[in-house]
């Protein structure tokens, strides 16, 4: 259910809602247009190239290069207990970009534009509700930690 995606989710109803179910099971999914083959991450149901609404899910590696980053100190509503947190924009290997938080495997002083990143699906552990997201980690980090 797409409402699981993110600490605060503003768009629970979307044609690509299954994304969150895949994420909870540990898979990062992009979309591929069945008509023209154009791929997209983040996934989109309606093809940007040929306008077809017929798409399929395709798993992506989550590998990428850090394009830019910032550490947010002043928080918006709903994120007050999480602050400060660092977000990064990553250019993905298969094309497209992702914006996400840095995870535990990367220390603040290691954050550098151009570094290799692995996007990893995550579950918010200490919440009773099911909430999922993805984080920016060192290459080689996996969803199942053992």
């Amino acid at each position, binding site marked *: 259910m797409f409402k699981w995606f993110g*600490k605060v989710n503003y768009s629970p109803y979307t044609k690509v809602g299954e994304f969150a179910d895949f994420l909870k099971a540990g898979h990062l999914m992009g979309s591929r247009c069945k008509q023209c083959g154009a791929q997209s991450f983040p996934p989109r149901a309606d093809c940007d190239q040929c306008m077809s609404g017929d798409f399929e899910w395709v798993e992506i590696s989550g590998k990428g290069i850090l394009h830019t980053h910032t550490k*947010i100190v002043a928080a918006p509503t709903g994120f007050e207990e999480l602050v400060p947190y660092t977000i990064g924009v990553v250019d993905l290997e298969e094309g497209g970009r*992702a914006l996400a938080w840095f995870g535990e495997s990367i220390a603040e002083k290691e954050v550098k534009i151009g570094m290799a990143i692995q996007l990893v699906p995550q579950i918010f552990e200490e919440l009773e509700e099911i909430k999922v997201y993805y984080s920016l980690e060192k290459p080689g980090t996996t969803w199942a930690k053992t």
Partner: protein
Amino acid sequence: MSRVGIIGIGHGVFGRRSDATVQELAFESFADAVRDAGIERKDLDASVIGSVPEYHKQRSLAGVVQEYLGLVPKPVWLTEVACASGSAAIRTAWMAIKAGVHDMVAVIGCQKMTELSTPEILALMGRVGEVQWESIFGTTFPAYYALFAQRHMHEFGTTREQLFEVAIKNHFYGAMNPAALFRKAITMEKACASEMVSDPLQVYDCCANADGAACIILASEERAKALSDKTVWLDGMGCATASMSVLRRPQLTGLPSAEAAANEAYKMAGVDASAVKVADVHDCFTIAEIMAYEDLGFCKKGEGGKYIQERQAYIGGKTAVNVDGGLKAKGHPIGATGVSMTVEIVKQLRGEAGKRQVPGADVGLTHNVGGIGQYCFVQVLRRD
């Protein structure tokens, strides 16, 4: 093709206006503009309101503002494109006059922001990016510009101090502007000591939320020539967009929408960047002004830091920028900003800017950005 000119201007005091409703704020600058133009309200054919409705408790703003201004039963509607709403209103009025539908239109940019708390404003503004894939990570408006700043510093070596130089300049001029929210100069020490908002942007890199309103009266060439001898002409009007999502921008060191809008405006006005003597650009953050110097062609790509460091943006430099204090010192009542910028440039081109006058200013420019660059409006104004 016939020109469209600005024959009247009005500008209220920007700040925390808990003494007035948004329509009362609008009235202040509207009345000034009507008097400045030497017209009567009945001479107007229509009005367009630029404002961002989500910040107000009042629903459907345009109607209540226009009613208070005494313009019922003339046509009115709202234009909204985030922080560029004021310029969108101007463009709408310009299009109506150019098309011959109306002869004289009032444009009012008005905004109250302080009806909401700071975290509410932060959350609302953070949603001006892509809500589905970005806002869930707690993005904020400063965070987006911080992402641009980090990349700009990485690619071009722009420094922390160069960013603050922009703020220092704008506060220097803001101190001379009675309509500005902040009227004191600041020092590099004070700026460096300010709190971090989103690395590398600190409090002194960020413009402040404010309440306020500004108004201009536009007229067709024929009416303008008949009514005024100090008409300032809207000779170049550029408008372009960029993707809402930073994930789909071609680069994160400048605004593609600004570059495109500027090129369109220059072409229409028959000038290039070097002709512009004075400009008001959208410095919601210091980095935004540096990117604007580059996007508008005042300097080469990547040399924005050098431009401010060499004082080219001061009066006496290549192109004076934000000598009314910019968003930084004036404050940023988002719907009003585009109109406020236009009022300032009109003053400059009329020679009415007093201590802040750019000598010999005949061509001016406004650069008004919506959100994190989704929308950009560039206007080239000329005094004959």
